[in-house]
């Protein structure tokens, strides 16, 4: 499954330093990572660099990966849970090229997994690093536009505003209506944005064996959740946190406990639900699990892309 037949033009031409960033910049980012690991959930400002992809495309995640990657790493990159999403493909190619690194789609094989909007379904292990691309690191930004204010709120652990906002949800909708980017409390100290992952993925962060690193390039912040850290999704005693569930199961592999994407099949309302985690789905199918629409062209397309 590991692919090493990647273009290695950087190796011969060396127009740029290994893994693109210069060594001083990598050192600066590593220092920020260490600080972030030492203060779980705290947003560490860092001298984010301009990257060769636009802001919003994963510049924070790419800088984190560039700072920690080495030739022996095995790199996986997903977007919306899938390895074959255009931007994931593009970032994977970037590191294959500038870091001469082996790439994989296999969650268990990867040493570094860079992700946008999902945590893989498969449980991560010690030694793995999950790098999140973060558009807005500040969980309170929607409630308070000023950075000077939100920094003070974190310093004083003043999170009343956040709870009031959740309470307003309950009074307006009868429930906490947040669906993705659902705020979490890390080690009962720092309120943290889990990046726009669906709240379905929130429980996976708690007591995780892997290192979780979060990089926001445009906003110039790094934060982290070290292994075995307590991560609690905010809720109320009478309105406990709950994750999304589906009445359907995955049309291809039959999974009934995975996050599902809705695929619109025509313009008269026919749709199917499939695993958002493409590797998880493929692996289940390989193990013989069968969903109600097994053999659909969507699955064939994936098989071709994997070749």
């Amino acid at each position, binding site marked *: 499954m590991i692919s090493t037949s990647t273009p290695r033009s950087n190796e011969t031409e060396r127009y*740029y*330093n290994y893994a*693109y*960033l*210069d060594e001083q910049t990598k050192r600066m980012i590593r220092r920020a990572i260490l600080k972030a690991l030492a203060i779980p959930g705290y947003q560490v*400002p*860092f*001298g*984010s*660099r*301009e*990257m*060769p992809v*636009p*802001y*919003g*495309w994963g*510049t924070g995640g790419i800088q984190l990966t560039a700072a920690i990657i080495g030739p022996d790493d095995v790199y996986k990159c997903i*977007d*919306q849970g899938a390895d*074959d*999403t*255009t*931007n*994931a*493909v*593009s970032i994977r*190619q970037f590191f294959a090229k500038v870091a001469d690194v082996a790439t994989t789609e296999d969650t268990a094989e990867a040493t570094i997994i860079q992700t*946008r*909007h999902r945590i893989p379904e498969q449980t991560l292990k010690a030694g793995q690093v999950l790098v999140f691309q973060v*558009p807005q690191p500040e969980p309170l930004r929607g409630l308070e*536009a*000023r*950075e*000077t204010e939100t920094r003070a709120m974190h310093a004083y652990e003043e999170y009343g505003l956040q709870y009031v906002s959740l309470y307003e949800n309950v009074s307006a909708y*009868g429930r906490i*209506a947040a*669906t*993705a*980017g659902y705020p979490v409390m890390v080690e009962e100290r720092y309120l943290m944005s889990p990046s*726009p992952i*669906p709240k*379905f993925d929130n429980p996976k962060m708690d007591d995780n064996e892997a290192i979780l690193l979060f990089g926001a390039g*445009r906003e110039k912040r790094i934060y982290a959740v070290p292994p075995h850290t307590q991560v609690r999704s905010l809720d109320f005693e009478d309105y406990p946190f709950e994750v*999304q569930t589906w009445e359907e199961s995955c049309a291809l592999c039959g999974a009934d406990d995975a*996050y*599902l*994407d*809705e*695929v619109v*099949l*025509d*313009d008269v309302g026919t749709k199917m639900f499939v695993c*958002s985690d493409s590797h998880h789905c493929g692996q289940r199918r390989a193990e013989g699990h069968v969903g109600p629409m097994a053999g659909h*062209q*969507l699955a064939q*397309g*994936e098989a*071709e*892309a994997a070749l």
Partner: protein
Amino acid sequence: MAYVSVKGGEKAITNAHSWLAEARRGDPRVPEIDVAQIREQMSLAVDRVMAEGSCYDPDLAALAIKQARGDLPEAIFLVRAYRTTLPRFGASEPVETEEMAVLRRISAAFKDIPGGQILGPTFDYTHRLLDFALAAEGASLPAAAALSETPQPYPMPTIGSVFAHEDLLERDERPEAEDAPFDLTREPMAFPAGRDQRLQALARGDEGFLLSLAYSSQRGWGSTHPLCGEIRFGDVTVEFVPEELGFPIEIGELSVTECQMLSGFSGSAERAPQYTRGYGLTFGHCERKAMSMAIVDRALRHREVGEQADAPVQDEEFVLYHSDNVEASGFVQHLKLPHYVDFQADLQLIRRLRREHFERNNPIKVAAE
């Protein structure tokens, strides 16, 4: 209509890139534009890319413009992504704009000022009528502009020097402690922002954004009643002190545009009434940008002069966080990336809320279904 989900992103990207290259080239029967032509004949585009790309290299900027198909923010992005990888061997001495070899220098404050008004190559008094002669092929070279009979003074006196003896204009104080200036390319934005940080952010900032902010200020949203004390455009020398020599040597020349905006200050208990300055400086010839920058700089100095601040242009977090077009363009356009995982989460919620809405308003019909 059947919908087939897009798979195989790798092939799609490669094909899109080939198509992009083809679109960039345009009709192959038309000769290809070369980088030197862009550098020489699209020089104001080159100047803007150097200024906002914060890298002084006309050839690189021209290449970026060619590669970006003339999309200047895209060209600026290309230059930024290149400059960020360059090693730093040191910081130059501050450039002395007082010693500029001036190509243009005007002041709106006085009819005539020492050194005179020098219009230079400006659009200001042209009639904006399309010159169809430029569309004709093989046009002859334009007639050379006449040389002045009297040499211009050097160094060209500044607006500051005109006011110096009366102390009517605040002095351009050089900071006592020569701390290294704040560097936004190495440190994240911090507040409250010092003037060094602010001026760097504005110098890199989007011309259009700063123009609109300056305009809003002029229309009364945080007015500073600006007067254009001086605009000068020309060449300055760059000096560098190599460690092994210990004295400055000249390493190159830059073309820059500098603007000094004057705003009245009616004084306070401690300070006598005086004119205050807003400052603008850009690489190349970017007058619109330098003037806008100077107005915004002055508007953001409201605390120093005790002005009430309630307009967008006076809010440093608002202005500085949103002035960079590489950041802004990226983040706005990242909405093109897939968001279907988040959308699925949202969709579920909306469907549930809708179902509850109809149950509340029409329980019998819902039960019947």
